[in-house]
């Protein structure tokens, strides 16, 4: 049951990530930016769950880099949008 739960979690998080990606692809830039940040968060969670399912600890390193890079990237985007108005 545990493996099934983890697989279900991976699917749910992947679906949430896809929906978020759809949200990040429409609307104005200030609508897209929160969706982009949420997509990165969901992808990091997805990779943690996937690392458990396929026994791949290297995915945790990727998730850590993604979390750090997405935070900095989102703030850089916000800075440019703020200046570009």
């Amino acid at each position, binding site marked *: 049951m545990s493996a099934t739960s983890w697989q279900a979690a991976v699917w749910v*998080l992947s679906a*949430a990530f896809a929906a978020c990606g759809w949200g990040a692809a429409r609307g104005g830039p200030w609508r897209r930016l*929160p969706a982009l*940040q949420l997509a990165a968060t969901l992808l990091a*969670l997805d990779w*943690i769950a996937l690392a458990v399912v396929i026994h791949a*600890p290297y995915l945790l390193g990727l998730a850590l880099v993604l979390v750090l890079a997405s935070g900095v990237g989102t703030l850089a985007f916000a800075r440019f949008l703020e200046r570009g108005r």
Partner: protein
Amino acid sequence: MTAEIAVAVLLGLVGGAALFSVVGLLRSPTPLAALHYLGPAAIAAPPLLVAAVVVSGETSLAFDLQAGLVAAFLVVGAPFVTQLLGRAYYAGENEGGESG
């Protein structure tokens, strides 16, 4: 068996928080309202996911610690990112630009 049920419940909560965030973000009327929905996925879900990893007992201590590190960065960093996003939007809004 108890651990498996606990893992299933924790993962269900993680999925629920993720879906709540996505639906809320997609249905929010303004960008500032959308920022509120970053919270459940970034604050609530990571500790629950790490709890599920630990409770499952299928992983090594190093794996658990690394997952905890990722979750800690998410939980600590998300409020700062959200706050700064809101500030940037508000500053841009008050300069008289078009809203997104």
